[in-house]
């Protein structure tokens, strides 16, 4: 059921302690900063967060980690020049890390949305990131068994929504939004604009409204 919500605070109010939360964005592009700030505000803790990175600088996901709300990060690239909050928590043993090759991260999220129970991929075969995982020789290559990543909630950023919750994105800010929207039980999208139903060309919808539960316009 789709709801248009007035404030980011109301939009995230239902997120419970211990939830798995997917957060869109790659670098700053497509990061739903306002929703992340609201998540920080709302106090939910013990979260498992799925994002490509583990926060940058002193904002957004980095603050969520700093404040100890994140029990576990599932990501591909936690270490950055300005990932000091994650680095500190990680070295202190206060945050768990599941490091996933970026394509496996994307494909595992996609699998969750598409009802795939697991898949084999050559990525990571023979590396420490595949240690302990089932392998199989398929299509002439050794491949590793990977499982879907499901989430309770996805926080994503899109450009425009219509009245049915259909979404379009902007340039490389699209990144994880469409696959996270499909993988989460409840998807909250912050958008820059809302147009009446019929205002988006059906040929160009990137995320159909079936994947979207809450939409909040952010100035």
């Amino acid at each position, binding site marked *: 059921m789709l709801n248009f919500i007035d404030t980011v605070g109301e939009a995230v109010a239902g997120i419970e302690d211990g939830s798995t939360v997917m957060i869109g964005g790659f670098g700053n592009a497509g990061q739903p900063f306002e929703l992340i700030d609201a998540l920080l505000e709302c106090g939910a803790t013990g979260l498992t967060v799925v994002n490509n990175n583990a926060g940058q600088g002193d904002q957004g996901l980095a603050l969520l980690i700093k404040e100890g709300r994140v029990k576990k990060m599932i990501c591909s690239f936690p270490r950055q020049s300005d990932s000091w909050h994650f680095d500190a928590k990680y070295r202190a043993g206060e945050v768990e890390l599941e490091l996933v090759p970026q394509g496996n991260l994307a494909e595992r999220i996609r699998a969750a*949305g598409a009802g795939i129970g697991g898949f084999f991929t050559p990525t990571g075969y023979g590396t420490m990131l595949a240690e302990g995982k089932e392998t199989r020789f398929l299509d002439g290559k050794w491949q590793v068994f990977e499982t879907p990543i499901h989430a309770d909630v996805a926080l994503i950023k899109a450009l425009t929504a*219509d009245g*049915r919750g*259909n979404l379009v994105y902007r340039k490389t800010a699209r990144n994880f939004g469409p696959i996270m929207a499909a993988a989460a039980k409840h998807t909250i999208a912050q958008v820059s604009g809302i147009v009446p139903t019929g205002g988006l060309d*059906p040929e160009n919808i990137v995320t159909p*409204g*079936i994947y979207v539960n809450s939409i909040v316009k952010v100035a």
Partner: protein
Amino acid sequence: MSIPTNDQSLRTGNQADLQTSGKPLGRDDLARLVAGDIAPGSFVNLGIGQPTLVSNYLEPEQNITLHTENGMLGMGPEATGEQIDGDLINAGKIPVTELPGASYFHHADSFAIMRGGHLDICVLGAFQVSATGDLANWHTGAPDAIPAVGGAMDLATGAKDVFVMMTLLTRDGVSKLVETCTYPLTGIGCVTRVYTDKAVFLTGPDGVQVRETFGCTLEELQAMVPMPLRAADPS
């Protein structure tokens, strides 16, 4: 169960916990009943044949979005006259129309919607449904039959609720609601409700419950089907 319908006039009797109408339902009445049972805001796929009739009885206020597995959400009514466009068809290959807010996608994305559990309801026809909700609707199993499955297994397995619409009895008077399907299966334990001309059944791991009957009592219904029936718990 007290699911609202948009045609209360059909519910004329009431025996024990059970509503009973005066006569068996025709195909259109049955389609109207199913349409009324679909919760507002649902995303729904209507199978080829009898289930397609349901779309005639969906009310705009219900705000239902129809999915067609060949690649569209927001499908409108069948196209007529100049609306007909060979590039805009439904899963039954019938020309249809596009409603405001529609979207198009390729086949893998379309089936991801079904297989990922995103459809609230699909409505399918059936040869047989078992007491535990097994569905057989794609193949007679006759040795000379050419099999064809299409999206039936994806719908049966993927939708949150699978409603079946069928006559309760074959032309030969044999129940299509069975202990165990004898036709090749489409999916296991997937059907949640069976809408027939004589009754609405709820199926699941605990067996068959009867929500309402049409033109027969529960006892008369029991005589037609080969498994124990009980009236549905009011909820």
